């Protein structure tokens, strides 16, 4: 994930998603989400290759036996 999210990137993703944005919106969105994106990027997450979203359920359900 990039350390920064810029307005042009937001504009392009919105265009691809066919969601209309007011002219000032991409800059506002970029400002709003950048701290979150930067924090997650700083974590430098390395997820095992085989992990998928439903692996969460596997970890969670181990607790039932506890």
């Amino acid at each position, binding site marked *: 994930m990039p350390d920064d999210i810029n307005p042009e990137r937001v504009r392009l*993703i919105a265009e691809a998603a066919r969601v*209309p944005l007011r002219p000032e919106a991409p800059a506002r969105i970029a400002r709003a989400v950048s701290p*979150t994106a930067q*924090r997650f990027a*700083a974590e430098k*997450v390395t997820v095992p290759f085989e*992990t998928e*979203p439903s692996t969460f359920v596997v970890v*969670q359900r181990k*607790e039932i036996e506890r």
Partner: protein
Amino acid sequence: MNAPPTLTDPAMLTLTELAAAIRARKLSSVEVTSELLKHIEAWQPKINAFVRIEAEGALELARAADAALARGESKGPLHGVPLAHKDMYYSAGKVAGCGSKVREGWIAPTTSTAIARLEAAGSFRIGALHLAEFAYGPTGHNPYLGHARNPWDTTRITGGSSSGSAAAVAARLVPAALGSDTGGSIRLPAHFCGVTGFKPTYGRVSRANAMPLSFTLDTVGPLARSAEDCALIMQAMAGPDPLDPTTSGAPAWDASTTTRSPKGLKIGVPTSFYVDDLEPDVAAALDATLKTFRELGAEISKVDLPDQTAVAAAALIVLAVEATSAHAPWLRERPDDYGAQVRARLENGLAYSAVEYLEALRWRAPALAAHLAAIGDIDVIVAPASRVVAPSIVETDVGGGSNAEATILGITRFMRPLNFLGVPVLAIPAGHSKAGMPIGLQLIGRPFGDESLIALGRAFQAATDHHQRAPSLP
């Protein structure tokens, strides 16, 4: 401790007391419903907790419940009890407006599993409750419905998104109500309004035919006066549902474990994040609660949790993208029908790519594994629900100044990591500030340790009276 309420004032009874009194025919369902309707009439103009009041329909159902009991027929443990729920739970043939202009007048074609199970246990609805637009807001603001107001101080926020549920339970308008919790929407209003709120383990209660916000994070749970009352709702509602695959294999509710003594229970207190920069009143409530837990025989120790800011960031990314995905058709066709705050939040979800979203989502399993490794054999973590008591409506509204967004982010800080981890959390009243505003704490459990939290909450509430305090009609 307060004197127990009398049967002459049914609105002041807890859900457990009310259900027992109706079952024993010490009170009729019609008496209870009529009394609650009087309270609603008095409070509604002050706090805007209801979006619809269904007086005639409720009284008709109350009469039917009384007639059934007279014939010796009881539907279940909630027989004849009037409840109201956040207006995002579908009931076939009835409006579910979801707090929005977009779904104004929308008639639900199906009934949510949670509602169906509560009705199968004998409850019926007396109306529908206020919420943040599409449950996407932590304050209780709603430009379309008008803002909900805190019964303890009507210039302050209720918290959201289950704003009406918390306000109605706090003001004694209903004995319990369903909320939903995707990023704190049960726990935060429970804290601000001084009621008990329960966010179950993700997968413990079916989300089928409830309005979605973020399918990875959404949980269905009650707000009530006590942990005991939350258990009564959970017993009726929890368990697998073929309409919601995330509940597959989840254990049934085990009521026998909800009365266990906390003696020997291992309680952890975070060394950072959840204890940073607390208002003095909140810190004092935490200290007093830990003292009570010690006196009840629990073993208290410090715990170093993984960095919660990273977990919160992952939760925000998942929430933002899933909510935007669900709303994309309406964002394309009628974006002006959203309020300014919610439209802005939904547009934020456009900033992330599919790879980034899935990277955050795939990290959920390792993040939970790291959390469990960090807590070791600790049963329950105790933490404040928020650094502060309820702020004012004005300072958190659109146009509330440059600090509004920072204030909103600040009040939700201790919420989102726990949705990402999917763990159960019981929010309990634990004191009041010097200004008289409620303070809530979070009891954070292990996955599927829901009943242990109820047991600890019950023991705490048997030893304290914070949960029995009620606001006065302004």
